[in-house]
């Protein structure tokens, strides 16, 4: 390998060494004397000093005192510009290309504990040398990858497989074989609809090995209304969706489901992601907006709302506005903008003023309530008019107390009472809330000192709405930018982040892991893309060829051989690629909390496939239902088919979350959650074995197996086989049948002598003519199938 090393400006020396790129760092770190004078290597194949890899981690040790929050001695190491700027001493700490003129070098190398930086733990000698080398070569600070727009692929051959194989080839790793047809149809069904394929569907797919069969299957699944349900839940995690207000009162929001249903419909209609974005950010500002456009803005009304007596309503409103900006940052920009509510961002290029300039987009967005999208159906027109008028009066009264509150803080409690009354009114009469921009008495927006609503910094005037300067400029329609301009800006093709962030998450839902492992943070402290070329190509494709069609992007990904690979773990890659970044196989995530219950009740034949509508209440333990302080709103278990609706429709109360959701990592809706945890613990095992919902599924599953061809007297073998086909979409091995049959026999013997226990175990799902002992033996056996790792894992 030849290294061309630049010493200060211009002078070159050539160093020949037998070393790989990996050893270059060793060289850098060990040959202090040489490298203190050495600059960059020009051979781009050899990984010379890489700012992100080599320097940033060192600077990270400094940002606690010299960052965006604290700038001790006037020094910040957050950007090249700040690093080279004069400090409190009027001299810069670093002079690019000149070590001897850079006081920082003396401070980090000093032996005097009073002088040395960092004061607590000195830098390693290698780190000091790396920093010196970097300064000597000009302190180059490349722009962050995520802030440059994704470029179209340079090759005609661009495809998912092309980019994945390219990385695998570099490591000399072959991809995995395709999974078998049974695994593939189960995988596709779970990923796209969150439901199991039926044995008949599996059979047909297994017998038609053609490529068209695969394509047709994907088309059929994407056209299923259950696709919208499945992918809506992903979005609701990001929208911090809940059916109650949170905090002490935790009042139900009876209209919240209008938003959930809007998301389901939009996904099923494949509304392009740009439109989907615009309607949620600013549907109310669209010219000639529809009721649905207003419902879309409920995205912003998913914030918590504190109606506790004694709350300062303005403080709570400020929290909600700040939450809206932070959420937008996480969901669309994968940027931790929320950090800037109190101070400049500790390491990303956003400052507090820019944050509040974003707040200015939302500061005059109030909520309104009306009959929308058919919510007035059951009422006579005159009644609707009367209620509208009544609400108008209530809103006027609220505005009046708000005005008084401006002068006298102590009346805040009146405001809270009015807000609570309005909430009850809307709940009672079925009005739907949405965002509405206020046109009169508009609020002015200021930076809030340390995020405190009582400490606006008014010097220098109020802030106009604007987007952070490091992003492309926002085009505006009128004189003053508004939310609609913001929405258009987000989905403009030049935006470097939005398409990448969105494509990364679609990928995540199809592979169990995202390409950027921090899907809510693409900033300088977030993860790097495991395959940047692939991510950029996907992002570019999504916007251009894909025209923001989610279904098109999903189709593109699932069509690939990469997606179709077997998920069998390859022990030989465990050391080389422990997290499967290179994608030499598929992953095996456990299905999410809602899907776990969905497929359990589907396998057992209980599932209701009804789409949409008000929330439902499957059984939850009394101890959970009662624990909320909001005890006046009793949890009443739904009857009939509503007991067996998909988990998406379960009423989500923030202070009393269904334990079957919480135990399996369903987020608590406190903040946007782009990625769920995928934990594996003993409490989950207890739930799967014993929880009322899952046990009922086992009872019904046994009944389903027993009812199969009852007349023809199906053998135990055949029933166990059916159980496998329904739950696992595959044939059982002989040994598997033997194991379960053995259990069945023991259970039979037991229950023959214990008829009372048999009846208890069967519960409400007894099969007509079957002997209770036989029926119970099947419950005891079928529950094992529903507890198999393979059952609730997407293989």
């Amino acid at each position: 390998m030849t290294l061309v090393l630049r010493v200060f400006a211009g002078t070159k020396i050539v160093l020949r060494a037998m070393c790989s790129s990996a050893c270059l760092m060793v060289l850098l770190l060990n040959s202090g004397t040489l490298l203190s004078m050495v600059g960059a290597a020009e051979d781009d194949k050899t990984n010379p000093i890489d700012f992100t890899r080599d320097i940033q981690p060192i600077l990270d040790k400094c940002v606690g005192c010299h960052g965006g929050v604290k700038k001790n001695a006037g020094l910040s190491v957050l950007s090249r510009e700040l690093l080279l700027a004069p400090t409190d001493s009027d001299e810069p700490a670093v002079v690019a290309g000149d070590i001897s003129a850079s006081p920082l070098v003396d401070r980090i190398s000093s032996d005097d504990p009073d002088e040395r930086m960092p004061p607590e733990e000195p830098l390693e000698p290698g780190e000091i040398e790396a920093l010196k080398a970097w300064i000597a070569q000009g302190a180059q600070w490349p722009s962050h990858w995520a802030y440059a727009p994704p470029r179209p692929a340079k090759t005609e051959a661009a495809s998912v497989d092309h980019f994945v194989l390219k990385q695998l080839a570099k490591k000399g790793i072959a991809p995995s074989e395709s999974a078998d047809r049974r695994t593939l149809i189960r995988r596709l069904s779970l990923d796209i609809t969150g439901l199991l394929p039926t044995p008949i569907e599996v059979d047909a797919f297994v017998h038609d090995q053609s490529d068209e069969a695969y394509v047709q299957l994907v088309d059929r699944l994407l056209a299923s209304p259950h696709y919208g349900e499945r992918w809506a839940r992903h979005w609701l995690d990001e929208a911090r969706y809940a059916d109650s207000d949170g905090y002490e009162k935790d009042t139900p929001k009876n209209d919240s489901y209008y938003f959930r249903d809007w998301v389901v419909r939009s996904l099923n209609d494949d509304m392009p992601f740009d439109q989907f974005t615009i309607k949620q950010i600013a549907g109310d500002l669209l010219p000639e907006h529809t009721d649905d456009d207003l419902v879309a803005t409920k995205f912003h009304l998913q914030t918590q709302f504190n109606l506790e007596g004694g709350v300062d309503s303005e403080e709570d409103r400020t929290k909600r506005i700040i939450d809206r900006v932070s959420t937008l940052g996480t969901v669309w920009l994968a940027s931790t903008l929320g950090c800037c509510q109190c101070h400049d961002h500790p390491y990303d290029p956003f400052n507090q003023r820019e944050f509040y300039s974003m707040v200015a987009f939302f500061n005059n967005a109030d909520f309104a309530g009306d009959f929308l999208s058919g919510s007035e159906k059951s009422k006579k027109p005159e009644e609707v008019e009367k209620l509208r008028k009544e609400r108008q009066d209530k809103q006027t009264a609220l505005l009046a107390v708000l005005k008084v509150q401006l002068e006298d803080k102590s009346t805040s409690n009146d405001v809270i009472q009015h807000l609570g009354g309005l909430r009850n009114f809307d709940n009672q009469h079925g009005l739907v809330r949405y965002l509405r921009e206020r046109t009169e008495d508009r609020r002015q927006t200021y930076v809030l000192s340390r995020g405190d609503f009582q400490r606006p910094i008014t010097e220098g005037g109020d802030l106009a709405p604007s987007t952070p300067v490091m992003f492309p400029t926002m085009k505006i329609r009128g004189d003053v930018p508004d939310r609609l301009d913001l929405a258009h800006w987000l989905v403009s093709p030049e935006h470097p982040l939005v398409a990448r962030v969105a494509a990364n998450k679609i990928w995540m839902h199809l592979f169990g892991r995202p390409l950027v492992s921090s899907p809510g943070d693409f900033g300088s402290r977030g993860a790097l893309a495991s395959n940047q070329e692939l991510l950029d190509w996907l992002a570019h494709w999504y916007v251009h060829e894909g025209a923001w069609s989610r279904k098109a992007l999903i189709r593109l990904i699932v069509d690939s051989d990469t997606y179709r690979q077997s998920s069998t773990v390859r022990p030989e890659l465990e050391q080389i690629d422990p997290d499967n970044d290179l994608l030499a196989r598929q992953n095996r995530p456990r299905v999410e909390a809602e899907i776990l219950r969905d497929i359990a009740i589907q396998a057992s034949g209980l599932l209701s496939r009804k789409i949409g509508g008000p929330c439902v209440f499957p059984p939850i333990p009394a101890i959970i239902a009662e624990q909320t302080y909001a005890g006046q709103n009793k949890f009443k278990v739904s009857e009939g088919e509503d007991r067996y609706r998909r988990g998406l429709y379960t009423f989500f109360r923030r202070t009393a979350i269904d334990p079957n959701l919480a135990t399996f990592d369903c987020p608590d809706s406190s903040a946007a959650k782009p990625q769920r945890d995928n934990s594996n613990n003993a409490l989950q095992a207890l739930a799967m074995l014993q929880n009322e919902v899952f046990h009922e599924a086992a009872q019904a599953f046994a009944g389903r197996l027993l009812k199969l061809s009852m007349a023809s007297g199906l053998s135990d073998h055949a029933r166990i086989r059916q159980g496998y086909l329904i739950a696992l979409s595959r044939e059982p091995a002989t040994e598997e049948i033997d194991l379960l049959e053995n259990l069945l026999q023991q259970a039979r013997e037991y229950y023959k002598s214990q008829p009372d226990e048999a009846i208890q175990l069967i519960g409400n799902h007894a099969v007509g003519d079957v002997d209770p002992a036989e029926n119970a033996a099947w419950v005891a056996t079928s529950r094992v199938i529903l507890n198999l790792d393979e059952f609730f894992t997407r293989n």
Partner: protein
Amino acid sequence: MNTIDVTRRDFFTTAASGLGGIALSTLLDQQGAFATGAAANPLANKPGHFPAKAKSCIYIFLAGAPSQLDLFDHKPVLQKLDGQKMPESLAAGAKFAFIQKDTARLMASNRKFTQHGQSGMWFSDLLPHLGTCADDICMINTMQTDQFNHHPAQLMMQCGQARFGLPTMGSWLSYGLGTENQNLPSYVVLSAGRGSSGGATLWSNGYLPSVHAGVLLRSQGPPILDLENPAGLPDMLQRKGLDVLRELNQRRYEEIHDPEIASRIANYEMAFRMQTEAPKLTDLSSETKQTLEDYGVNRPEPAERSGSAGVGDQFSSFATNCLLARRMVESGVRFVNIIFASWDHHSNLDKELRYNATMIDQPIAALINDLKQRGLLDETMVVCGGEFGRTPLGENRPGRDGVTGRDHHPTAFSMFMAGGGVRGGYTHGETDEIGWSPARDPVHINDLQATMLKQFGIDHLRLTYRTQGVNLRLTNITREAGVIDALVS
């Protein structure tokens, strides 16, 4: 991520040791699989940053905020100023939930305070039993919080900040230290009385893995959710079913080598052991009659019931929870959170506080004494208090007859601790003459939390979890919190 490593050895010596019948050699042969950490047991017992004084914590959370001025913080001057206007200097910056500032008057306590123990620690006449523990108690009269309303302040107390989605203290200890008994949860919650306004957010794992969430235990019936076999399923068939399940899962594991499957197998076995172990916790039949009497487990409700504490046998439930807490720390549970909520005495303070204080006084004293007798107090930290305090002003809420209560007060309130190496017989800090704010030695909640962690061998700055690009911790990263050495011996 966590600065404290979980080793594979921990996994095998704890979680997997009870793998009934599983071919351990099969798991051991797959060392690479375990080494990735996916299957490492996150609850394995592990050491902190430095030697620990305390091993377990019993946190008694009096949600709703008891009146420190009627229980702990004796203010003779306030007694003399009863009925006077609040000092001008304080009125300016004050914020209240319900008090009308213009007509507010200072309100003396109707309680009689006396000194207890060698140190002469003050307690009101509502807490005679606690008084007998004075020399084991470290009283802090200068606690401060940033928050003014219940739920945010409760989050502040449990999570270090008033934000949703953060881990609570018990989750941090579970995450940092794991737990000693793999057959029980590391972090349990006992709730009596009316539910707290924070609900499950008060024992949330936040962004930490869900295995560190507090597990709500019931004091009657099966203590953990889903702990009992389904009705009609005998233990024999549960075990047989689990054996078949294990063999089927193991076949799958041998086929596709995913360590998550091995972990799943271990978790089903742990669940089975929990089924046997956890009910022993709530079975009080092995406790002596004397112990039950000491805690007051069978005390009847007083004739004059409280209006706000809820229904049922509150006295008995709270006493039982204190006893259960001792049984749990004895069994190796890391963190026990006892929550009792109904201290929000905006009115009827005298009657309501008497009811509540009488309910907690005897059981908490018994708990401290019991731990001490068993030699557990040194390694068990008992912490007790609310989310803020109550005003020296009487609450003159419009529309209410008379002034019979106190409003929310975040600037000074009392909490006390015992055991786990804290300094017994010591009263920390002093409030001004009317108990409005600290005259010296204020203790912010984050300071208290940093001090608690230190007793567990944890540097609060170093126990962190990376989320959203930031290493977060229990104490607010934007605030300087410090260990208060005076609190520990």
